[in-house]
Structures are given as C-alpha cells and as structure tokens.
C-alpha cells in the first residue's frame, strides 16, 4: 500500500467512526492526518505543491568532509608547477584573510600539484590522474570550479554548506527537503545519512543532518553498518516479530478505543507511526543488506563495496535507497583536510572514493534513475595554492581556502558535460562566474521544483529559508 492509499484507508476508517466533527474539533484536520504529518505549533503554516515542474526528485549528496584540494583534482593550474616554491604574490592574495595555521608563516610558497592532468570526454574537462573513474564519466558531469563559501574553518564552513548558515540551530538541507517535499516511500526515512566507518579526520556533528527548529521528524536518519542499521531497530533478546505483531494488534484496538472515547485523533496517529516502525524493522534491514547484489555490482563499485560501512558500500546503499524513492541520501566521507603530507593522503582519499562515486552515477544512469536523481560531490571549502608548512620536492600541504572550491554534479537536470566558472592562474581568486553556497542551494532546490525564496518556515517571528535572504539560481548549470 502506498502512503497515499494508506492515508485514504485511514480516512475511511475514521469516517466509519462517525465522529468527524469531533475529530476535526480536536484541532487536527483530516487532511493533515492523511499526510501522516500532523501540524502543530509553528508548523501549522502549510501549503501547496511544487513551484514548478521538477527536474530532480531525489538527491544523493556525496559530502567530502575536510575540504578536498581542487588543485589536485579538478582545477588544473600549470602555473603553480612552473612557479613552484616562489612566494605567493601580494597582488594575488590582496590581503585577504588566512587561517591562523598558515597566516603567521614567514613564507607562503606556491605549491604545484604533483599529479598529471589531462582533458577528458567531449567536454574536455581537465582532471587529474587521481580520479580516473570520475574522469571516465566526464560527459555526465557538470563541474563547478568556482564555489565560494564565507567560512574559513571546518565547523562553520561545513555547517554553512549543509544548513545554509554558519550559525547553529538551522535545519539541514535534507531536513528542508523532508519538510518541503515530504516522502515518496512511507516505509523508509525521507532523509538518510551514511557515514564512512572508521575514517579519521574532522569530527562530524549531528547538526549537519539535524532538523534545527523544524520538527525532529525531519532530521536525517543515520543508517549504520552493522547489526543495528537504524537506532533501536532490533527487537530485544527474547522478543520476536510475532510478539511485536501481537503487541501492535492489541495497541491498535486500544488506541481506536481511546480515540473513540476521547475524540482525540492523536492515538490514531500514534498507532500509524507504530505500524510504520514495524515496517521499518523489515524494510531497513532489507535495503541495508547488500548480499542480494550480483557480482556485477562489486565489479562496478569495487571490491571495497563488499565491506559494510566503506564509502563504496555506502554508494551501493545510496543507490538502493534511491531505487526505493528515498528523497535525500547524504554520504559523509572524512579525511580530506590535508594541511601536510597532501600527496600521499589525497591518493588514499581518491582510492577510497573515486571509483564508487563514478560507479554510482553510472549505475543510476543504467537504471534510468539518473534523469531525475541529482548527485552532488564536494566539500566545505577548497585549499590554498600556497604550501602550508615546509615545501619539499616530494611533499607539501595546503591550508583552507574559502574563495574557490570545485564541486561536481550529475543527473537531475544539470547540464551534463560542462565546466562552469574560472579561477585565476594561481587558483586563488575567481575571475569568472562565482557560485556562492547560497546559489548552489538555490540551484539544487530549483532542480527539485522548489523556489528557494518560497520554501520558508516561520520561527521566532521571522521567515527562515535554506538560502537566508540570498541565493540566485545559476541557470547555466541547468541542462
């Protein structure tokens, strides 16, 4: 039964109770109950439909935590190799702020990428040898080299990218989508979060997938590798499924009785949620169990994908969730914060992510899902063109750089096979087509059929948006 059908059934059920007026009177209209989403308090402001025809219906966000270096991956700067070791010219830096980690260095030497770049696909996009699989799908990608953020430290920057504000307390992107678009599959969470297991790096925080001032229903649900993929999913020892079913049946009777006696529909909502919980107990393990995947899957995503909790396994899981119409899947992969020993460390990061990221796009395409599924890859900021710490012939590091970062998108109505925006020869400033984080959000919402200025929630006497009071849709990114 679909959510819609279930809702109709519930309505019918209520009608037979013959107490519609009473139920309405309890302050909960049938329509809101039909949505399975009860309006209370601030969420009482509601309304109507998408703003325009969507290009994307689902999103996979491959968040690369720590700030991947664009200069080693997508933003080819031969000048840095030529002038390796020379001081960053003041005319380029223009006194813009640096972090306290490199800001006090006696010298800021330019550091050239120590990796080979080549053009790929018909678009001729430059990519390095570190990402051969991503390079192979160049013509599916829309690469943005000019994403600008406002924060220079991880926490504020990640919070900004994922919630639209550096200030804590705002809903995350997925929570906004859950709030604005609702579910397409009542048996699974609307917003799923997958974190690569066992990776060190910058800490993660619940707020990055939290619901902020929206109801807790909209927060991301973390699916974890292991026996308990969703918190508290498994029945306790000594209590089996049949028992749970019997419990539920008894609860249903009691709640209906209660609703009849009190004229309050809350017990009916509660039993509906309990039924959903019961279904989650089977739907989640089913989706999280990759054992029914054919060998071909692991040939595509890599053998790593057989190991639950790896980035590759999470990419397969993301595809399974998308197949089941989960609205928003967000992967977190830590370890991109390469202040030092960058060449070795970025190689590891790419080995862990390149193949599976590309495989996900390819897989979705083969299944006909890429057309209306948007895949977004990127981190919270870029990295500096100068070396942090000591520059040696084989080793260097890069500090945080908010002024330009590279992001790629695929599917979901973006312009495939395109490269957007240009940075200067040093990869330091943008010379053409900046895309502010607010613009990126506005564009993602636009692809989903949502006008970012009209997805609002009133809180503390103010209308809040994912894009605050900013953001422009970047039409050039839309195919």
């Amino acid at each position, binding site marked *: 039964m679909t959510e819609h059908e279930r809702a109709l059934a519930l309505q019918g059920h209520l009608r037979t109770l013959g107490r519609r007026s009473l139920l309405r009177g309890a302050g909960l209209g049938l329509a809101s109950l039909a949505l399975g989403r009860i309006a209370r308090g601030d969420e009482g402001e509601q309304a109507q439909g998408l703003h325009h025809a969507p290009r994307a219906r689902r999103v996979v966000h491959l968040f690369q935590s720590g700030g991947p270096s664009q200069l080693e991956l997508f933003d080819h700067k031969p000048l840095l190799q030529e002038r390796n070791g020379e001081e960053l010219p003041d005319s380029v830096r223009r006194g813009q702020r640096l972090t306290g980690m490199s800001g006090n260095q006696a010298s800021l030497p330019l550091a050239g990428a120590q990796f080979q770049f080549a053009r790929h696909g018909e678009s001729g996009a430059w990519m390095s040898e570190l990402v051969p699989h991503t390079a192979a799908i160049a013509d599916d990608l829309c690469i943005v080299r000019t994403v600008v953020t406002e924060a*220079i430290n991880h926490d504020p920057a990640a919070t900004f990218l994922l919630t639209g504000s550096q200030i804590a307390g705002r809903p995350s992107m997925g929570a906004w989508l859950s709030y604005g678009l609702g579910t397409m599959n009542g048996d699974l969470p609307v917003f799923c979060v997958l974190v690569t297991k066992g990776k060190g790096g910058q800490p993660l925080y619940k707020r990055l997938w939290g619901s902020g001032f929206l109801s807790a229903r909209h927060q991301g649900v973390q699916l974890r590798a292991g026996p308990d993929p969703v918190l508290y999913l498994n029945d306790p020892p000594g209590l089996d499924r049949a028992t749970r079913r019997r419990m539920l049946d008894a609860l249903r009777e009691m709640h209906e009785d209660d609703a009849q006696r009190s004229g309050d529909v809350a017990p009916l909502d509660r039993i509906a949620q309990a039924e959903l919980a019961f279904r989650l107990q089977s739907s989640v393990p089913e989706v999280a169990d990759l054992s029914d995947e054919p060998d071909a899957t692991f040939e595509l995503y890599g053998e790593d994908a057989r190991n639950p909790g790896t980035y590759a396994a999470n990419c397969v899981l993301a595809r399974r969730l998308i197949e089941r119409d989960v609205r928003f899947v967000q992967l977190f992969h830590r370890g991109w914060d390469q202040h030092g020993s960058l060449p070795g460390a970025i190689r590891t990061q790419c080995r862990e992510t390149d193949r599976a990221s590309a495989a996900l796009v390819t897989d979705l395409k083969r299944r006909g899902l890429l057309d209306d599924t948007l895949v977004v890859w990127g981190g919270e900021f870029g990295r500096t063109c100068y070396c942090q710490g000591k520059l040696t012939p084989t080793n260097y590091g890069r500090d945080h750089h908010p002024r330009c970062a590279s992001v790629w998108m695929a599917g979901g109505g973006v312009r495939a096979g395109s490269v957007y925006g240009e940075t200067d020869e040093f990869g330091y400033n943008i010379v053409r087509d900046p895309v502010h984080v607010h613009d990126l959000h506005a564009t993602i919402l636009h692809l989903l059929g949502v006008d970012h200025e009209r997805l609002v929630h009133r809180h503390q006497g103010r209308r809040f948006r994912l894009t605050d009071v900013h953001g422009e849709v970047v039409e050039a990114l839309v195919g």
Partner: protein
Amino acid sequence: MTQPSPSWLVPVVFIALGIGGSGRLALGEERGDRPPVDFATQVRPLLSDRCFQCHGPDEGSREADLRLDLRSSATEDRGGYAAVLPHEAAESELVFRIAADDPDERMPPVESGLSLDAEEIALLSRWIDEGAAYAGHWAFERPERAAPPAVGDEGWPRDSLDRFILAELEAAQVLPAQPADRATLLRRVSLDLTGLPPTLAELDAFEVDTAPDAYERVVDRLLASTAHAERLAADWLDVARYADTFGYQSDVNMNVWPWRDWVLDAFEENLPYDDFVTQQLAGDLIPDATRDTRLATTFNRLHRQTNEGGSVEEEFRVEYVSDRVETMAAAFLGLTMGCARCHDHKFDSFTQREFYSFSSFFDDIDESGLYSHFTGSVPTPALDLPTQAQERELAELEEAVVAAEQALAGFDVLPRRGVPAAGRFSFEPEAVTANAVEGGPAAVLVDAPVAVEGSRGQGLRLSGENAVAFPGLGDFHRSDPFSIGLWLNMPAFERAVVIHRTKSWTDSGSRGYQLLVEEGRLVVALVHFWPGDAIAIRTRETFPTGEWHHVAFTYDGSSRASGLHLYLDGEPAECEVVRDHLTRTIRGGSIGNLAIGSRFRDKGYKDGLVDEVTLHGRELCAEEAAVLAKEGVVEGGAPDPAADAAGETLRAARARRDVLRDRIRQIMTMAEAPDLPAARRTAHLLHRGVYSERRDPVEPGMPDCLPTLGFETPRDRLDLARWITHPDHPLTARVQVDRLWRTVFSVGLLPRPEDIGSQSPPPRHRALIDTLARDFIESGWDCRALLRRLVLSATYRQASVASEGAIAADPDNELFSRARRGRRPAEMIRDGALHAAGLLASTRGGPSVFPYEPPGLWQQKCGKRYPTGRGDSLRRRSLYTFWKRTSPPPAMALFDVPAREVCAVARPSTVSPLQVLTLWNDPQFVEAAVRVAASAVEATSDDAGRIEHLMRALTSHAPTEREARELGALLTAQREAYRSDVDAARTLAAFDLERFVHGEATPTDGADLSEEDAVERAATAVVASALLGLDATLTRR
C-alpha cells in the same frame, strides 16, 4: 513510482497571520456598530508583515525615506501629499498605492511577492478615515491589572484567574469541561510539577483521601520536592542552552554542571524570579556578591566555544558575545534580537545599533574567543569552586605565603641561591651550542639558524621558522624566581616571538612564559590562560631596530605583575602592566623546550639576531642586571645564608599553595575585565555583523522602543538586570508568567513564546496574563506561589475530554474549555518509565552521567568512546544525562529535545516511528518493561490483577473493559508463545541493563528462574512493553 505527497511549501503571502482581517470586519458590519480599527492588533501586524521590509525601522533597506512604523513619517508632508493623511483615506498616497491597478504603481511591489487583499485594503482605509491613530505595541506597554470579570456561574471559579477564563467561555457559550477524575488529576499534576508519575501508593492514598484539602496537600507535597526542582531545571536547561561540552568540532567537556546544580538550588529554594534573573546576568556585580551568585553567571558562558586550529580569535569572541545577547533577550524578554545583529530589524523596532548597545553589556569580561587546544585550562574568567576542606587548607597556605613574604622583606638583599643557575650561551664558532655553565645542557639548533657577527664574537640569525632550543632548561613553576638575559638586534616587527617556553600561539590557549615583540614593544608574560589568568608587562617605548641591545627580564616568583622587571642595556625599562591575575600553573599541555626564534603557528623572529643568552634560576636585582649587560656574567657576591633560607621558605610556601590551587575545580563565569588600559575594550557596531567590520563605538543602552525605567545611562550588566526586573518592565513578568503557565498547562498564554515583538498579535487572554503578571510582581516574583495558584485553579482541574459543543465552539482549545493534551517531553517519558519500574535513582546533582546510548555514535563522529556508566548512573533522571552537543543523547533528540547549541524557549512535539522503536527496543525501556512486569507478577497471580497493576503503574488508570480484554488476550497469547520457547522467556525475563550494555549478559542469565517464573515474567513484560508505547502513557491528559 508513487506520487509525492502534497508538499508543505509555503506561499509568500502568509494567510495564517490571523489578525484583524475579514472575519472580524464582516461581523462588525453585520452588527452595524463596528468598533474602531485597533492599530496595535489590526493595523500594525499588517504593516509589519507587508510594508516594514522597505518602510520600517531598517535603515539599510528603507525606500523613499518613508517609515510606516512612525506616525510622524507616515503623515509627513511630502510636497503636497502624504503617505497617510488622517481622516482622508481617499487622499492618502498609501491607499492610492496599495489599491493601484497599474503594477508600476502598486504597493507592495509585484516582485516582492507580497500583496494586500481587498479586505485588508479596506481595513487600512477605514483606519485612516478614523484618524490613523498609532499606538505602541501592546507588549511594550506596562501590564496593568484588570478586574476579574463577572461570570454567570459563580460556583465554578476557584481562583480569580478562573473568572477570566469562564467569562470568555460564557461569551462563546461554551461550558467548561467536567473536572478531571482523581487519578487523571493526580497523574497530571504529578507530571506537570515533578516530571514523575504518581506511584501506586500515591494513587491509592489520593483515591481514598476525601478531605476537601486533599488535592491542595498533594500540590504542596509536590512543590516542596526535589523532583519539582529537577523538573523546572530541565526546562531551564533548554533556555540556557546548557550542555556539558563546548560544541563546535572538538566539543570538549566544559565542566559546567555546578551551574546546573545552582539552578536546582534556586528552584528548590524558590529563589524569587527577579533574583533568579539578576544573579544569572550579574551575580558578580551585585553589592553582596557571593560565590553562589557568581556561579549563577555561568549562564552567560554556556554558549558554544571553539578551539579549532587556525580560527580567528576575535571572530569567535564576537559570536559568544552575540549569543549572550540573543539568549538574554529570548530568555527574559521574549524577544528575538538575532536579526538585528546583521541589519536593522525589519519588523521589530530594534536597530543594529541597539543590538550592539545590548552586546556591550556582555563585552566586559577578560575572555578569549578560543578555548585551550592543548590544555584543560578553564576559559577565563573562571571562578574557583573549592570544597570546604580545600578552602580551609588554602587559607592556611595563603597565610604561610604572606608570613614568608614578610620575613623575606626584612632582608635588604635578594636571595642568591634559589634554583641552580642554568645556562650561558655565546654561540661562538668553536662550540656554537655550548653551555658555559659547568655541567649545563647544551643548546640545540633547529633547522639551522645562520652564524652572523654577534654583539660579542659570533651570534645567530633566525629565519622566523627555525629556532635555538634549550632542552632541559627553564622548566619553571610560577613560584620559581628566574631571570633571562639576551642580546637582540632586530628589524621592525609588528609581532615576533623572541624567547618562550610554551606550546604554541595563544589560539591554542597555551601556557608558559614568553618574551614577545608586539607593535614594536617588548612584552613579558607568564600565562596560565590568556588573557584572564596571566601576568604581563610591556615596555612603553618601542624597541630600537637594527642595533644590538641587551634585554633582561626578571621574575620574583610572586605571580604578580609587580614581580616582573624588564631591563634594557642594564637599565630598568619603563613598563606598563598588561595583565595582573595569575592564579594557576604555567606548565603542562605538552609544552616544548625553552626556545628562541619561532613557535607553532605564530609569527617568528624573522631576520632577527641573537647573542649571549643567560638563564638564572633566581631573580637578579637591578645592579646585577646592569652588570649582566655590561660584563656578560653575574659573579654573585657573598651569599647571605639567612636571606637564601627565607627565599627558599617563600618559594616552598608558594609552591605548596599553588599545588592546591591547581587542584581546585573551576568554572567559567562572568567577571569584569581588569581596569587596565591594555584590557579595556570598546564595543562597536559591526557592519553586517562581521567581526572585522567595525563601525562607530557604542555605549551600553536599552532599545528605544522599550521604556528606560530610570536607566537612561546604564553602565553594566547589573543595571541591565535591574532594568529587566524593574516592576514596570513591560516584558519580563509577562514572559515568565507565560513560561510558568506553559509549565503546567503545556501551552502558553502567548501565541509565540519566543517572540512577543511587534510581529506577535496580542494574546487571546491578554487581561489574564497582564493581571497575573502584576500579581506575580507584587508577590515578590514568587514562582512557586504562582504555580500553586495555577494548578489549584478550576481551569487546570478540567478533564481533557471535551463535549461536542466545546469542540465546535473552541476547536483549538484557545479558550481553555478543557485540559490540553499533548505528548510529554523526552525527560518525562524516560524518567516516568524508570520510576514506574522502581528503577529511577534519586541522587541529586553532581557531575553529569552516561546512561545507555547505542555504541559507536561518538566513535563515528569524533573517535571518542562513550563512557557508559554503571549502577545508579545508568538510571538517573534525564536532566543529568551528559549532553554532548555534537552527538546529543539520541533517544532524547528523537523526542524533540533541542540540540542545546542555541537558546530554545519551546520545543516542538512530534510523533515519529523512530520514537516508537526507541520505546520498544532501547534497552532502558526494555529493562523498565521487564522490571515493572516483575513487580506485577510478584504483586498478584491473577491476570486481571497483573494487567491492572501494569496499567496503573504506567498510565495511573485501571484498564477499561476493552483494554483489559485486549491486554488479557495478549498476555495469554504470549504465555503460550513463551511456553514453547522457554529460553526466549528466560532471556527476556532476566534482562539486566547494566550486564547488557557492558557485554556481560550470558546465555545462562535467567537459568535460576523456574520455567513458570520465566514464562510469566516474560509474557507480562511484553504487555508492559506494549503499554510503554501507549498514547495514554505518553501524553498529558
């Protein structure tokens, strides 16, 4: 693919504003005697919503120099016309524009997406025709007491507040609900006041206590309980954004639970609300400040803090100050100030300047924007919280120090012996790193400083990244006198690290001692935590560049700035005191070697020269400093053994005191910064809220839209607190009355508790809240008395089941025609289950605890292991659960407890499948089900009796017939099921949380249970588990 469910996208025009508007207007017309349009309730919200964006208080976005929030501007003659011409709507530009057909003329402009409908236009026209009267926002005017209205049914009211409610009900022709039955009332009041359901014994006792004052006695018992204080404290923790960790990314423990215990004390003692406010805002400044009142000010330090590497200190300090303002405004005034931080408030009458005027009250402490990366130093200002024993011992040790200081003062020479003299380095070519002091450790050159011509012979040039290090030297305590001399020849520096024994730059909050150049001047400092726990002096003159000079600094071990001396070429250098408050150790935190030239993440001594470094483990006197500069060596005259002994006695006395001092717990509080020129801060307006965009300086002050109440030129936080708690303040009492009303009624009197600014319509029960506010103030801000009044009222005692008529006439229960239903908060759900099962530990206060949470949540976010507790700490009340901001306790977060990253004055209340899973499968609830079932099995052998026991324990009610039937059938079915799987029954019946969470459960658990016992307990536990998810268990009724 399924259809997406209809979305909840919100159109730009908010129809939900619900004020003024059509209904009321139409009614008036029908009656033909319509009352005049009310500016405050009908016009201002409309103008605010549609017009203030461009014609409001925000100077930055104002168009056409027109303000519609001010009558003077709206009616101003604009060259033959005015936006508003009183009594002449037809001649008013405003009406012309809002009614214009031409899109170029129309207001609001088409592109704004805003519009006014015909009725709204008519309303504005009528308001102008009636004279366009302006009035202040209702909430900004002093609340006045209203006479309780006359009512028809004189028998119903129990308190004058009931008359206000009843009068409205009668006007709407609604009868109040019947009184709740005794069990419902006892459950409700117990949960509302203590967060815990009644025990079976309490239910029984109340059932049979037919005395007229039975309920009143229950209320008094509940109000006097510790549980009551705990229940109120739990709510206040949200407001105060209380957490046990700093938040942001490293999210280290901030050890602030003593403040939480202060809150418990305050509620338990029923501290008057004006004191509650004053002590938290300014407990350090009140005339009779005590340690407790200072502790209260931790309230202002509970915001998040970061120590992320490379952060800009000032950027985050500004964040903290702003958070204090926003929290103060939301908590005590019910105002949202956050928007005004970046721009003038578009809807309320706050300007950005006023935000920064407020923020300058909170800008007065000696703090850093970053907490320590490498040490556990408590960010300053910090308050010592000694135990009584420590306090006594400390007094004795201080006395000994004073005595030893006096003894030494009797000598006219300085002690010569002290800690062994340590080093003399000349950097000569034959042995560059040699130490001329016999047996002294050699220096180490790090990354090749270059040999150059020195002040005498050879010296060294530093690059800013390299160093001369002195391993094994200079490991001084703050009680050790010491002296360092060196020749320096440097270029002009804005900042440079010359010599130091620290870990890194102050962005890491590092400890140690150092000689730096700042703005060209020499600065010597000993630091525990910069800036609030350190001593530092700075030369008045800039250091001469490009030539060799001898620099020496000496320290007497006193932890006082007066014990620091700087000499330039053997002459005392004129210095100013930068900081003079060192109370804790200057060691620890993986401190590195004493070194010259550079340190981690700081500006090095780039292209600076150094030569002839000397290190003494004693304080050199002025004559010796002169000799050192001239001769390069201090020979030391004849020792005075008595002076040496006195010096050693003093050093040892200080060391003993310091060891104790370092062991005393500290907590962040508010304390005014020292009155030193170097510590003085001026608050500025920050353009767009950005820390580096300073504009005009601002003075402390109150917003113009609120009365000054005699505080025209407030000076400090104490003035602010006195203004807030002034009996004539329009907001404070209303906000608190609303909060207390919400505490027991679960819905407030104000429509939006987080914002009673001008976007907020007046409350439905304005006369009631205003009257209660006056009563509250005149009662001496007595919270307990007000709560008592509320729960004793007839309004409170109503049943939550409503008649059809009441539902038709009062669908949203705005009139309080019945008791409110709603899900209980997270704490009550868990605590209630543990309490019903007899598991809840009653320990009060103390460090936060680590009850069960699913393994791996911390690990995955930050690599740390969650230290799951044992014994009682697994089963304490939820307000004691350790709150890690970046990974809050998951079960509480699922039940809508806010993340505590920012102030939250109200929680959403949702229902989700994940909550259901928690109630079913969280081992804490599993144990509760098993234990409450065991007590039912023990209590009676009869199924019906057991079911009644469970129902009453968990819902406070006996089952209805249908419930009894359903649960009986479930029990029977489970008994059958477990008889055929006794192992499963044993496993469930023997479930023990502590053994389970620590991996100690074994397959033999429960082996000691007879088959019969195991089956009975397990089957009954299933019934209990079902009841934990029952709506009646979870909701207020």
